[in-house]
């Protein structure tokens, strides 16, 4: 029984991990664009971007999942997400990417604005281009500063993926909960906690390693 449950939960956890990784793949770079947009001096760019950040951070992710999944169907009378598991997974992914990109953008902005203006000026008087200054001087300093807050968000994301079950994405909690109905046992649901714990332990170790690798400068 234990082996059977473990296998079944692993199947659900695979979806969890897929959602987690794909969210990061899209949200980490998208967050950078959103952060540049939010810092833009051009009003038609920064006002809508900051409005989006306000909406996304000001409403529950659970609600955003429901709106993104059901919204298009209600408004356009057409399910843009496609039928079945695949469509629900993509809707969940879109919701997570938008949500996390907004949170990441604020962390990036903090990191970028914390770089002393003297670093940019030193690059400028040495005849470096804006791109060189960003890539060769600013970027690594920003990364060093944002690793701790980003790791917080990323570890939160591991557990937030469980919210996808509200639109019936078959992730690990769903798999565990299924045993309550089918076999009348609740321990598989509690057992899912172990999967999250192991995964976040790996991430904690990874971020610790990155921080250590960046500790050679201040």
């Amino acid at each position, binding site marked *: 029984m234990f082996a059977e449950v473990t296998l079944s939960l692993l199947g659900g956890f695979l979806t969890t991990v897929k959602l987690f990784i794909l969210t990061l793949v899209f949200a980490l770079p998208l967050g950078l664009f959103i952060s540049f947009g939010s810092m833009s001096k051009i009003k038609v760019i920064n006002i809508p971007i900051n409005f989006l950040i306000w909406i996304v951070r000001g409403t529950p992710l659970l609600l955003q999942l429901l709106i993104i999944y059901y919204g298009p169907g209600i408004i356009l009378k057409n399910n843009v997400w496609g039928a079945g598991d695949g469509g629900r997974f993509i809707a969940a992914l879109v919701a997570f990417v938008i949500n996390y990109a907004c949170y990441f953008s604020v962390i990036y902005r903090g990191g970028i604005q914390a770089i*002393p203006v*003297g*670093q940019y*000026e*030193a*690059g*400028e*008087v*040495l*005849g*470096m*281009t*804006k791109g*060189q200054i960003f890539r*060769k*001087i600013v970027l*690594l*300093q920003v990364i*060093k500063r944002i690793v701790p807050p980003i790791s917080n968000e990323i570890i939160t994301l591991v557990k937030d993926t469980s919210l996808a079950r509200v639109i019936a994405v078959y992730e690990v909690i769903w798999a565990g909960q299924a045993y309550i109905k089918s076999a009348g046992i609740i321990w598989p649901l509690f057992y899912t906690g172990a999967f999250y714990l192991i995964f976040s332990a790996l991430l904690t170790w990874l971020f610790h390693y990155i921080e250590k690798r960046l500790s*050679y*400068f*201040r």
Partner: protein
Amino acid sequence: MALLEVSNIQKNFGDTEVLRDISFSMEKGQALSIIGSSGSGKTTLLRCLNFLEKPDKGRIQIRDEVLFDGERTKRDSEEEIRKKRLHFGLVFQSFNLFPQYTALENIMLAPKLDAQAHHRADNGEIEARAKELLAQMGLSNRKDNYPHQLSGGQQQRVAIARALALQPDILCFDEPTSALDPELTGEVLRVIRELADNHTTMIIVTHEMKFAHDVADQVIFMDNGIILEKGSPDEVFEHPTHERTKQFLAGYTNPQQ
């Protein structure tokens, strides 16, 4: 012909006139000290020369190349500005070394990028020159140290080497010892003095009056955005013509407690 010719520079920040009608010139191999109280416009003047600020009016010329002309309406491209500003080097009050690079890497970064941009791959030459500069600063044994492992005086000497690596026509110093403990200012001043002895063309904004007097061929006293007094060190320090200059210098010779 003068190496640098600055004429009628004016700069406003909003309604505040920071620089008014600034004109001076200097010859190759000369050292120019700029003194004056905080807020007199000294730093803004250096920043204008280094294209960190754009003057509202006036003209800046190096030999026969016009770097800035307030009359001209065409805006310089980023590329043109980068080329022009390399006539000047700037040493900052707060060093501004790049923390993720070693002393040697700090010096080599800009020359390497420049060589890449022009498809010259003379990295060996760049490294040799950087090491030579570090030796000149008395820091050969510190080449692999990161900035946080160096004292303020050592950091500032690396910053001077970094500015020299691009071989500017004129090296500018913006209060190079103001952020240092008194016991560390000596080592930085000594290095600048050596540069002056080797006829490096320099503009030095400083609050170290004795140093400004000893190192310079020419001294400018700025007050309230204008050049109030200009001349040889003896003229400005020993025989100032304005009451305001005397008052300013008196504050340094008899510090009031």
